[in-house]
């Protein structure tokens, strides 16, 4: 028995279902009844119920690609701010992809305070200690570009089904973007106007993530900005 429709906005403590459902994120069960724990979109797939949060801080997960900022260092690596309650640990060998002889090499040549790094989360333990890898293709220190921070809950919308939204953003604007699951997005472009347009589009996605027809609206907006610039 469902008490809320698919994609309906629900609030913490709201009764959303009753019966033999499997409950995933954003919801909890008391006896036979299912309640939402966050403000989010009701999501029903067969017997599976979850609530997709419309907000909330980023929680690191294994396999996520994130954009971190160096906030501290120690003799064998760095601590990265991930815009999360939890920081990321990056050891120099996981940045360079090789064993580094700490007696011979000074790690400060690789990264400085405030540097921006694209990394993959290799592991998260039960104490939320996060280990990062930053040596794969597309990983490592980020140079240039504009960084935007949005709510990490809205990142799936920025990427879109099978990358559809990200494709629209890039091809229509002519800019290049890199998206971190932790809500940080890098934008590179020769045309400053279009870079700002992409920022506007990202903020639009963040505001309207819960609505439909968003990909088309974003495309229209960017096309309008492009034609106005000519």
């Amino acid at each position, binding site marked *: 028995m469902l008490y809320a429709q698919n994609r309906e906005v629900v609030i913490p403590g709201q009764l959303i279902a009753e019966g033999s459902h499997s409950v995933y994120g954003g919801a909890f069960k008391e006896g036979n009844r299912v309640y939402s724990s966050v403000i989010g979109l009701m999501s029903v797939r067969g017997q599976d119920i979850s609530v997709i949060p419309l907000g909330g*801080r980023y929680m690191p997960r294994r396999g996520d690609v994130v954009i971190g900022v160096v906030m501290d260092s120690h003799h064998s690596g760095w601590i990265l701010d991930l815009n999360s*309650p939890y920081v990321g640990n990056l050891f120099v060998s996981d940045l360079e992809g090789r064993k580094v002889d700490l007696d011979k090499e000074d790690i400060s040549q690789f990264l400085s305070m405030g540097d921006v790094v694209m990394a993959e989360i290799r592991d998260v333990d039960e104490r939320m200690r996060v280990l990062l890898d930053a040596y794969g293709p597309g990983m490592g220190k980020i140079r240039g570009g504009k960084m935007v921070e949005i709510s990490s809950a809205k990142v799936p919308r920025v990427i879109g089904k099978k990358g559809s939204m990200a494709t629209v953003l890039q091809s229509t604007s002519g800019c290049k973007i890199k998206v971190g699951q932790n809500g940080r997005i890098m934008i590179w472009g020769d045309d400053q106007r279009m870079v700002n347009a992409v920022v506007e589009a990202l903020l639009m996605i963040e505001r309207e993530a819960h609505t439909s027809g968003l990909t088309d609206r974003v495309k229209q907006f960017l096309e309008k900005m492009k034609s106005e610039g000519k």
Partner: protein
Amino acid sequence: MMGKPEKLIVDGKRLDGRGPDELRPLKIEAGVLKRADGSAYVEMGKNKVLAAVYGPRELHPRHLQQPDTAILRCRYNMAPFSVDDRKRPGPDRRSVEISKVIREAFEPVVFTKLYPRSGIDVFIEILQADAGTRTAGINAAAVALADAGVPMRDLVSSVAVGKVDDTIVLDLTKDEDNYGTTDMPIAMLPRKKVITLLQMDGHFTPEEFERAIEMAMKGCEQIYEAQKQALKAKYETKPEEG
């Protein structure tokens, strides 16, 4: 400040025209601040209250961190200009006690175990006071926590009841609080109808207490409706036309 009026209830109507079980005008808005992770603005009668939530976030100093849970912290503060006689800035004993009981009102609902070693900070600022500020603060904080995406078992709704001219009344004004005999703020979890904050000073017979708490809980239900509306309203805006 006027002296005590002869009667606080005349012909079943209170000084501001309300019946004994009527709430003051209530306004709630979610997501009013940019820096905070979640926020809410509440007006209950002349009370004007702002609540902000930061977190879950890294907890400093580190020795306060708990290995398996988030620490919930709450600070209630009155702006110097919020009251008749200017209040000197800084925490006083009353604010410290109120901060504690408000935190304890939320402890049963927040899923703190999902965020080991972190902190969830709730800040309540009273911008204008007219009795019932802690209840307004709780109503705002509940919306701010939800707005921040902090997982909870339920919202928390709060109101005060009291006794003036031997009549049990809901949602006291400052005059009713000053000149009445009893003040009892409560906070309730709307779903299970359990109480997470209860304070009382004054005089109730056991029978009066039962009536009072029933009236308070009905008041909380009305407030809960307004809290729900405020949260959903943020997502009911029509998308902008391209």
